[in-house]
């Protein structure tokens, strides 16, 4: 696939994740303490070899778009940029013994359950932690906020898992 095709594909993915999030999922809430930040799927499932600067810019733009819809100024952007920065670290931490193949992508079937769950829980957890505490702006309601972080991490994590199992190819493209 050429570069242009790759860019178009990613734009389409962005539109899909952001659209589904804004139009359908953003109002869902789990007992009023958990939310599903579905758009994170776009950032989490970007190609593994995405250059760091590009990744950061993409994260920022995604977060900023969400801020426009939530009227939150920069909370989503700040948390998303943090996610973008930490993603290569987590990837490095989880490198398989013989390194990543050129064909490898963030895919539960290719990388395995364990790899994928650690990747998901680490990144989503850090993102939600940063997100909810930035939104609160202080450490005043710590218990409630930690509960929100936990519930939302579960909600987002499980949704991402479902997306993976439903829409990602089980076989490597040859």
């Amino acid at each position: 696939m050429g570069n242009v095709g790759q860019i178009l594909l990613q734009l389409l993915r962005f539109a899909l994740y952001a659209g589904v999030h804004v139009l359908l999922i953003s109002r869902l809430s789990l007992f009023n303490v958990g939310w599903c930040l579905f758009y994170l799927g776009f950032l989490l499932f970007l190609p593994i070899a995405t250059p760091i600067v590009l990744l950061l810019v993409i994260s920022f733009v995604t977060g900023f778009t969400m801020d426009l819809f939530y009227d939150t100024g920069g909370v989503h952007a700040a948390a998303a940029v943090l996610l973008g920065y930490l993603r290569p670290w987590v990837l490095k931490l989880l490198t398989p013994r013989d390194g990543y193949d050129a064909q490898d992508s963030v895919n539960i079937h290719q990388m395995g359950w364990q790899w994928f769950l650690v990747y998901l829980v680490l990144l989503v957890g850090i993102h939600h932690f940063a997100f909810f505490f930035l939104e609160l702006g202080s450490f005043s309601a710590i218990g409630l906020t930690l509960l929100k972080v936990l519930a939302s991490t579960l909600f987002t994590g499980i949704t991402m898992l479902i997306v993976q199992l439903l829409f990602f190819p089980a076989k490597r493209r040859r």
Partner: protein
Amino acid sequence: MRNLLAFLFRYRGILVFALLEIVSLIMLIRNSAYQRAAFFNSSNAYVGRVLEFRTQVYDYFRLVDVNKALVVENAKLRQQLYRSDLASRLHDSLRVPGDTTGSRLRPDTLILGMQAVLTRSSDYPLIPARVINQTLRRVDNYLTLNAGSNQGVQPGMGVLTATGVVGRVRQVSAHYATVTSVLHSKTNLSAKLQRDNTFGTIKWLGEDPTHALLDYIPRQNKLLRGDTVVTSGYNAVFPEGVMVGTVDSFTQEPDKNFWTVRVKLAVDFSKLSYVYVVGPQPRAAERDTLETRSGLRTPAVGEEGVQP
């Protein structure tokens, strides 16, 4: 020079990261100020259009609830129109200046939050609007309405619904308006107890969207559970006597001179759909200028009412 470039390239990740984080945090902090950059919020035309479309999507799931709420409101309005006891029909057929026929049948007032509000005051008509976006569980909550400056909405106007006070218009574009909800950490709404006219200030602590705090009620005052809390006349935004909520519980803290009163809000923010925008009270601007000039209040925009 080459070393500098090499250095920048080597640390490009952390540098870009720091830059973008700083930009985000600046946006976040500037957003906390009451007024903010006119463009980047949901009253922006493009975002507004998407949100309106989203409301259409959500409406589909909420039809039952919306219908129920409308039926209830209709019943209430009908009750106002055809009350059996004609003697208590206040304001229903106030004559508007210039109308000499006296044959006007439509009511000139609408009862919102237990208070009659003029529907067709010539300067500031009551503007009906639809809530197309709303946050509920944040620390600072906002609403977006589908009425804007073309319909006559201006920043600073009050927003009511049939059951009580909703918030205050914050920013306006041609077709949309954003509203600071009562559920906002900087809410400062002047209110009073209807039973004995004790003044206090409504604040929101940021946790429970069904309750707020009524502050500055002196300790020596007697309180009753179920007391009605209404807006006070100190307030230039809302008419006097509009329902805010009822007293739910009250406690005395040893180190404070005031009661800590939990108020159950009359408006169910989780079911808002149609609201009314009310104009400022007559001569509010003149009063504002005078009070600012004599140092009664700081000229900071956005604080509602004066603390007693």
